Each structure stands twice: as structure tokens, then as C-alpha cells.
């Protein structure tokens, strides 16, 4: 089982909280799609004819693609790879791109999962975040998508936003729950450099939300979603039974995947590789046949670190026995020592062989993973 990821590094506008470098000129989109089609040909053996069970369009904003772009990419995949009949095909989308016509066409070319960046369901907050959609438009659009036949819709939400009280935040989750979607990703706002919010922050026009408040939002999210039948299966992901993101889960489970496009990342069990991140150079290098990626062969330590990082972010956690069986004594000794400290601080839960993050630990996951990382 394997997956294919397409990176679409374009945005129509830059959101206030986002540090994604979106200044790529959208005029080059045709060249990019051609380059990605070429990359698919070049790398058609990468997955060694394994069955492709997930395809994912991420970005940037993949909904800037025209239907023929998407169709060209998907048919190239179908011609060159062994695509399973029930393949999960996701597209990240901006709400304002999802017109009824576009939704219909997406459905027709085979997109069967939408991941929609609504970010909030609060009018004021949407304006504050620099988004160009309102809540009424959101409800209508999602209803339209459902009527067309989309049965797997995911919404992105941001909490810990300055000015967003706990009360208003829970109100907006309740409203989201009424939309009847199958999956929700919820992220705490982080103020990254090179964003509008960062500029506000350093000029004292914005105050960062205290950790305690963010924790309140996070706990409210978990409780409310659990009450409504969502399971919390990864640090920031919640789903109805059977609707976990198969694509993202395959990353966490260490499955093979092929990443296509600038900055895309691939993994085949032995090595990781990254395409160059500059869109311009990616297009250029693909066109003139020069190198467009870097490879790193994973050693035992890398494999351990990856296992810990990817595993601990999921509800399934990691297996003690697997670590003892798979890795060097030195690594295992280090792991055991750190685990007992984390246990004392109540950052993790141990259940027999399994170790996963406690609720307190989830919001400290970067810290915990750093503690467990083995760096010689």
C-alpha cells in the first residue's frame, strides 16, 4: 500500500497567519503541472508497482488548479501506477474556490475527499484571519458538496486566536458540528515569522494568547468532538469512525509514498528524498533534465527517531517491544531512561506494550519528542 502527494505551491492571496511563501506567480501553473506530469513519468517505478491507495493534492492551495489540470495529473497516475479501485483522492481547497460547477467537476474526475480550510466558523474571526468567506457561504457550499455526492469532507479549524473567547470558540465548533462533516483538523495558532500577525506582534498591536487559554480551547475541542462521535486519532486530527485520513495515516505508519512537485517529500522505506523547494528551479530542472532532489539514506538512528516522532503523534502511540527488538542497546537504554522521566511528569500514558501521549502531553508533543530523540 502506498500514496502519491502532489504539491501545488500557489495561493491567490496570503492569509494573515500563514508563513507559506505564496508569492509564486500563478501564471506558471501550466508549466508546473507539465513538470509534475513529467516527474510522474520519470518516477513511475518509485513505488515498485505497489498498490496506490491514496492520492493527495496539498499546498499552497490546490483548488487554484483547473479541472483539466487535475484530470491530467490523475490520468497520468492511473496510466503509470497501480491505483486501487477504492483509492482515497483528497484535495485541499479554499472555500471560495468551491463553486457548484467546480465541485461537480471535481467529483466527476474522481476527487472523493475534500479538505477545506475554513479555519473558523465565526464571522469576526474570519475577517481577522484575512479570509474571504463568510459563515453563510460556508454552510451553503458544504451542503452543495454533500448533495453532489461528497461523503468524506474534512474541515480545518484554528484555535488560540487573539480575541477569540472560549465561549465564542465553543459556539463556532457547535456550528461546525451541525454541518455533518466526517473529519476535523484543529490547530493552535502559532505566530510564525514572515506573517502579517508576526508584524502585528512585534509592533505590539497583537498580544499572543496565554498557554493556559490555548489549553482551554484545546480541551474544549477534544471534549466537544468526542461527545459528537469524533475520535482524536492524531495530535491535531479528529474523525468519525472509518474516516481517518488514510493518506496522512500512511505517513504516520511509515508507508511508502511518492511526493511530486517542488519541496515534495518521498519515502520508500530506506531513504527519504526532497525535491528542491524553489518552484522556478523545479520547473527549470525538470525541463532540462538536471537534478531536482536530494536523498538521505536512513540509518538506524534516523529510523528510531522517525518511529518515535511519527508514532507518538498518533493515538496508537509506539510499541516498547518494537523498539527493544529493532534498535541498538544504546538507543533502547536512552529511550527507557527518558520514558521514565516523561512518565513521572505525566506526559505519557503506558498501557502494556503501548506508549502514547497523555492529554497534557499532546500539547507538549514537540518537547516530548525532542526528549526522546536520539542524537549522537
Amino acid at each position: 500500500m502506498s500514496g502519491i502527494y502532489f504539491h501545488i505551491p500557489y495561493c491567490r492571496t496570503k492569509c494573515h497567519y500563514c508563513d507559506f511563501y505564496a508569492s509564486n506567480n500563478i501564471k506558471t501553473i501550466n508549466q508546473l503541472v507539465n513538470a509534475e506530469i513529467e516527474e510522474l513519468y520519470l518516477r513511475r517505478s518509485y513505488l515498485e508497482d505497489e498498490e496506490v491507495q491514496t492520492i493527495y493534492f496539498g499546498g499552497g492551495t490546490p483548488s487554484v488548479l483547473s479541472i483539466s489540470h487535475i484530470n491530467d495529473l490523475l490520468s497520468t497516475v492511473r496510466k503509470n501506477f497501480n491505483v486501487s479501485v477504492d483509492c482515497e483522492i483528497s484535495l485541499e481547497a479554499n472555500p471560495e474556490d468551491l463553486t457548484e460547477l467546480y465541485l461537480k467537476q471535481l467529483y466527476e474526475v474522481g476527487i472523493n475527499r475534500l479538505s477545506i480550510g475554513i479555519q473558523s466558523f465565526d464571522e469576526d474571526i474570519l475577517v481577522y484571519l484575512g479570509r474571504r468567506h463568510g459563515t453563510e457561504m460556508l454552510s451553503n457550499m458544504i451542503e452543495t458538496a454533500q448533495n453532489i455526492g461528497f461523503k468524506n469532507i474534512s474541515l480545518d479549524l484554528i484555535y488560540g486566536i487573539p480575541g477569540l473567547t472560549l465561549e465564542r470558540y465553543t459556539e463556532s465548533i457547535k456550528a461546525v458540528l451541525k454541518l455533518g462533516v466526517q473529519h476535523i483538523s484543529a490547530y493552535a495558532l502559532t505566530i510564525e515569522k514572515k506573517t502579517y500577525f508576526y508584524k502585528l506582534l512585534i509592533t505590539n498591536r497583537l498580544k499572543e494568547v496565554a498557554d493556559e487559554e490555548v489549553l482551554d480551547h484545546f480541551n474544549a475541542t477534544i471534549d466537544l468532538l468526542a461527545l459528537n462521535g469524533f475520535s482524536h486519532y492524531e495530535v491535531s486530527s479528529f474523525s468519525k469512525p472509518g474516516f481517518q485520513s488514510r493518506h496522512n495515516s500512511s505517513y504516520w505508519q511509515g508507508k511508502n509514498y511518492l511526493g511530486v512537485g517542488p519541496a515534495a517529500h518521498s519515502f520508500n522505506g530506506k531513504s527519504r528524498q526532497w525535491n528542491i523547494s524553489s518552484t522556478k528551479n523545479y520547473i527549470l530542472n525538470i525541463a532540462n533534465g538536471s537534478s531536482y532532489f536530494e536523498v538521505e539514506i536512513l540509518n538506524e538512528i534516523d529510523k528510531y527517531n522517525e518511529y518515535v516522532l511519527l508514532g507518538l503523534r498518533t493515538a496508537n502511540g509506539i510499541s516498547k517491544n518494537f523498539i527493544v527488538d529493532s534498535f541498538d542497546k544504546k538507543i533502547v537504554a536512552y529511550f527507557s531512561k527518558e520514558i521514565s522521566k516523561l512518565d513521572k511528569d505525566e506526559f505519557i500514558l503506558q498501557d502494556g506494550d503501548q506508549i502514547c501521549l497523555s492529554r497534557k502531553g499532546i500539547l507538549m508533543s514537540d518537547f516530548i519528542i525532542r526528549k526522546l530523540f536520539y542524537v549522537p
Partner: protein
Amino acid sequence: MKNIRNFCIIAHIDHGKSTLADRLLEVTQTISGRDMQAQVLDDMELEKERGITIKSHAIQMDHIQDGIKYRLNLIDTPGHVDFSYEVSRSIAACEGALLIIDATQGIQAQTISNLYLAIEHDLEIIPILNKMDLPNANPELVEDQIIELIGCKRDTIIRASGKTGEGIDEIISRIISDVPSPAGDPEAPLQGLIFDSVYNQFRGVIAYVKIVNGTVRKGDVVKFVATEKQYNVDEVGVLKMGLDSRESLSAGDVGYIISNIKTAREIRVGDTVTNVKQPCSNVISGFEEVKPMVFAGVYPIDSDDYEDLRAAMEKLQLNDASLTYTLESSAALGFGFRCGFLGLLHMEIIQERLDREFDMNVITTVPNVSYLIHTRAGETVEVYNPAGMPDGSMIDLIEEPYIRAQIITRSEYIGAIMTLCLDKRGMLTKQDYLTAERAELTFDLPLGEIVFDFYDKLKSISKGYASFDYHITGYRPAKLAKLDILLNSEPVDALSTLIHADNAYNFGRRMCEKLKELIPRQQYDVAIQAAIGAKIIARETIKAVRKDVTAKCRKLLDKQKKGKKKMKQIGNVEVPQKAFLAVLKLD
């Protein structure tokens, strides 16, 4: 011998010395343009990147003029204050010097001090204005400065450009006509000046030598006077693009001697080499033992790498005799070394070489100078690190090293530079105007104040328009305090500093503030305290973090690895590598 010309180049960093030298090599067909790797004289990768020549080299060029074949020996000189002794030895090996001044920038402090050295050694000076091809070249004004400085005639100044080749032929004919041929007697007892050495992993140490008197041949038994060591000469020769062996070297020649010397420490720059059977009656004057002036602890990030670090230090010392190190242990950092460097640049170079050539990731502690401690018992001890400071009750008097600093700047920056130097406990001893817009300031300053952040500050307040040179003048009494830093009440020895007592309060407060910035929030509160003896003089608290999570997995792996690599665990606090140099970053 009358057809030999030995000369060096005196120039400020970036004034185009290397490019001009390359042109000389090209014109004399020492190297063809096609094979030319830009700036061949700087052959260490690090040197190329920094655009400065760290260690001197020499090269012989042959040139025919009016039917006579001349042998031109260019002796290259390092271009930084940390290496001023090496420069003086290179100068002592020459009879002439090219004074290269950037026509867009004018004379800089370092050029002046090296020029004085050259004049002291009676070198014939050939003044050259370089970079004449640049549109902002200001030849008249810079010529005024040169005339003022060396009292030459305006028409003797050569206008040149290393880039276009302008003036290169004239430089060569002036070297031939103006620079005197070396004096000396080839039949006299051997007397050679060691002006540099390099380490070669196959051949050992190669000594670069100027034969002042006598002759040295393959098979001779020679003695180095200062080290009193004797060696059989395996090979002698001259320096072309590589080593070019000869039967012998005679008075006036510049070349090399290979004699199975195993480490750089067995040879001293400035030493005299002579023949054991027929020794010379006196040594060449000017020899000094080079002493390190700046000290810092160097520790492996991972204590397990201590043995690797030791091996790396040993190898570095094979070809850099000015690096010294002794074992040191720190409660916070484990085992490491207290290293002595010629100066701050030298320290940076060693740190970078450890990283590049040995892949050693190290923590360097706050640099300090050496202090002379006179105890009440009447003893004098030299202290190289804060931990070595005896208890206050035992100390009668502390002395610290002083330097005389020359700063050349545009006059509009004089005020700011004065403030900076006075703030660093400096005393203005002289102020000269070179031209209406350029002044030379001379300060007496404690060296200990320079090793922190003086350079960077000088550069920034003068917008890069001040140049700086110094030499050590001696020790003076100092009022010092040892400032300790505590993290969660545990003293971190690697963060201790020796500081002038009057500045200690202010300094301690700023250290705490800076560390608060540099140490990331942890799962517990972290208290940062500054203390003198048992007295806490400043405190900051880093609040515990309750949220440390990245939403998406993308790039997280790399970020985590990098983050962890730079952290050192001290007690229960994660301290990043850069925090150990916090003191250098105080504003």
C-alpha cells in the same frame, strides 16, 4: 645574487592584494591564466571564503628585463592583527615592499602599522594605488594620504588595477629598479631566517627560509637556534607553484628546507637556522616566543566525543603551533580543553576548522585573557580561566594585559568611537589628523575588553569605516570580580566571567536578560541568577511552557534534529549552544 629581489606586499584586507599578486604571477608566466584558480596564494578553503590570507606563503617568479634574468621572490603576509608577529618576520626577510592602497578607500590602521614595520626594517617602499578601474576611485585624495605618510613624490605612485591589469608591468620594472638586491656572503657560516612553516602530512614540517648568509645544501646537519634542535637536511629548494628542489640555497635566496621535523611545535617563526659544523656567531634579531593572548574553553557537545576532540586538537597543533591547549573539566560541560589563541580571529578559525575538517560540534565558552595574580603569600600566578581564580581573601593584586590600539576613521565617527573606547576603560593617548577627513586615534585599552564584542561594535558604529590594529604593551593593575551564573540555583561554571568590578552589576543584569532570551522555555520554571561570591545581584525567570506542538508533521523531523543538536543538558535545563557565548552578544 644581484639579480634577486625579495619583496612583500603590505595591504589592508580587501584592498586587492591577492588579485594583484595573481596578476604578477600571470605576467611573469609563473602560472598561466588558464590554470589560474582565482587568488592562488590563498590556498586554504577557509582563507578563500574569508578573503584574507591567514598564513603567509612565498613564491618565486622569474622575469627577463633588458636581457637579464631576475628572480623575484614574493613573500606573502597574513592580513590580520592576530598575526602581526608573523608579518614582522616576513617583512624581515625582504628588501622591498609593495604598499597597496585601495584607491576607493584610502589608508587603514593595519596598513600603517605594517608600513612602519617595513620602514623600520629599511625596506624600499613602492606605493601603489589599486582598484583604479572602479568608478568611485579617488586617486588624488588617496595619493595625498600616501605622500603625507611616506613623503614620496606624487609621480612615484603607481596607479594599478589587479582586475584590468593596469600598471602591472610598471610594478615589475619598479621592483627590479628600486628594490635593492639582498646583501650577504654565500661563503660565510649559514645564517637563515625562518619566516614561516607549513605542515605537510607526508613530509612533516616544511620551513620557509630566507638565507641571510652562507649556503645550505642537501645532507647538511643544521641547527635551529631557539629550539636547539638538530636535523639532517633532506631537501632544499625554491617555492614555485609547488616545491621545486635545488642542490643548495645561498645568501639572498628564499626557499624551503625539509628536514624530517615532525610537528609545528619543533620550529619557531623568527628563529635562526645555522650549520652545526660551522655555526654563525650571532642570531637574526627580532625573534620572539609567540604567546597566546585569548583563552576559551572548548568542549564537545556530547561528552562522549571528548577523545575525538583531543585527537582533533593534536592534529590542529601539528600545523598551527600558535594554538595551545590544556585539559580542563567543567561541572556543566564535562571534559574539554582550555585553549590559547593569538586573538579572536584565530579563535574563530580554530572553531571553524574543528567543524569543517574534523566534524566536531563544540561549545566554546566565553573568551578571556590571562591575568597575573599576586597573592598575599607573595606568589605570582597566571590565571587563564575564571575557575582558576584563587579565593578573594588570598589575592593581593590582580594585573591584566593592556594593548595600544590604533584606530583610523573618518572624522565624523570620532565621537562615537571615543565613547566606545572610554566605555571599554580605554585612555586616549594620541589623536592625529591624516587628512581633514581622516583621523588616527591611539588608545590604551585592557585587552580583556577587546575580546568581547569590541570589533563588531567598532564596525557598526563607524559603518565599517574604521580600521583597527593593536599590540600588547604590558600588564596593569585591575579591579576584577568573578561573576557566576546560576540556573535553578546550580552554578554553571562554563558561564562564569571575570569582569571589571565597577561593571559587574550592570553586566550581571544584562547577562540574565540575554540568557532569558536565549534559553527556550522548558516544562519547569527556570531561574537565572547572577552572583558575585554568595551575593545574588540579578535574577530573571523563564516561565514554564505548557504548549509546545507543531500542527503539521511536515519538516518537523529536521527541525527536531537540529533543535536537539544545539542543546546541552545542564541539570534539568536544556541550554542551547549559543547561550554559552551570550556574553558576546550583550548590547
